């Protein structure tokens, strides 16, 4: 296969774009997709400060590298979850990556905050990933606001977005469907949230990461189950194989035609948010769920004689 742009030997074939690219032209394709995403969704400008959530996965590192090479003012934020073995490796990888590329990095430690994820696993009655995800989102938002950042960027790609949209559509979850999308404006208590890789598939990001020499953190979290998420991605992989481009159309169609309807519904019926009386984060419940989780785990630890 020849590169669609320069006719050199292609290294990546992209059925959904009816094209193939050589390494240089693929890099250009990737950059253009991010530029288009940032411009069309009005994500941020070169005068703004962007905090990039860095898990250590290929997507977040690829995002950080690409935004920095486009001249954006980026700082990475890694949350050390305190999971033995796995968190140390992820953190070391993010630190090495940022150091070698001269990128700014902040690290927040869950253990220092008093709630390493293994405690959640042991003492919470809720699924660990649900709580872990909530905690991470809380801290990313809080740290972005406290640091005066204009936007929080995450490495979610098209497959992540479609899998999540699909899961929420299967449940007709109005709350999620009303405020899901690649760019959510700031509002009281929430920083602006953006996903500059939303036009790019997991396959495309993986190719970019490979070509940029980004190593992949290949020790998955020991608590990961990921069953339904991975299942939905596989289903979509099959649909995409049969009609290339369908994934993007489904997501784009939702943004253009579906989301507004759900937002209107949610506005009519949804919750009113006020600052948490303990920590100030927006909540609909007096004391927010983060503070309640933290308190209940602290009590259970005390009962177990461990705190």
């Amino acid at each position, binding site marked *: *296969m020849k590169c669609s742009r320069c006719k050199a030997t292609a*290294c*990546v*074939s992209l059925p959904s774009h009816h094209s193939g690219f050589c390494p240089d032209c693929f890099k250009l394709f990737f950059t253009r997709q991010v530029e288009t995403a940032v411009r069309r969704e009005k994500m941020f400008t070169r005068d703004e400060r962007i905090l990039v959530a860095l898990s250590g996965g290929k*997507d977040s590192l690829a995002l950080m590298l690409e935004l920095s090479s486009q001249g954006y003012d980026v700082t990475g934020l890694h949350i050390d979850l305190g999971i033995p073995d796995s968190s140390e490796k992820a953190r070391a990888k993010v630190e090495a990556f940022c150091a070698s590329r001269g990128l700014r990095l902040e690290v927040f430690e869950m253990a220092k905050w008093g709630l390493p994820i293994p405690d959640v696993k042991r003492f919470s009655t809720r699924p660990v990933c649900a709580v872990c995800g909530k905690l991470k989102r809380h801290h990313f938002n809080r740290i972005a606001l406290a640091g005066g950042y204009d936007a929080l960027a995450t490495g979610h790609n098209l497959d992540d977005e479609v899998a999540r949209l699909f899961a929420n559509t299967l449940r007709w979850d109005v709350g999620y469907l009303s405020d899901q999308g690649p760019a959510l404006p700031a509002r009281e208590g929430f920083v602006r949230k953006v996903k500059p890789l939303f036009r790019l598939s997991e396959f495309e990001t993986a190719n970019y990461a*490979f*070509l940029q020499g980004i190593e992949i953190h290949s020790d*998955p979290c020991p608590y990961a189950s990921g069953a339904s*998420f*991975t299942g939905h991605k596989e289903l979509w992989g099959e649909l995409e194989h049969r009609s290339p481009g369908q994934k993007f159309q489904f997501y784009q169609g939702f943004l253009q035609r579906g989301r507004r309807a759900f937002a209107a519904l949610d506005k009519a019926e949804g919750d009113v948010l006020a600052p948490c009386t303990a920590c100030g984060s927006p909540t609909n419940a007096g004391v927010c769920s983060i503070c309640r989780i933290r308190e209940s785990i602290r009590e259970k630890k005390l009962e177990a004689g461990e705190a």
Partner: protein
Amino acid sequence: MITVNLEPDGKVLELHDIRSVVGLLNKLGMRHTMAIIARGGELLTPDRKLSHGDVVLVRKVTSAG
């Protein structure tokens, strides 16, 4: 025979009668966009030929969490 390094599983497979990347993907039961395939640091599109003695990296793209 070709040698396949499967990531992130960390498995090594030895496969016979594989003549192309698409043949390899089929053998592994994978769609073209489920994994990136590289040989000697070079990414390969599905139409590329493979030959006896090749060592190939197959890296699945779906992250588990």
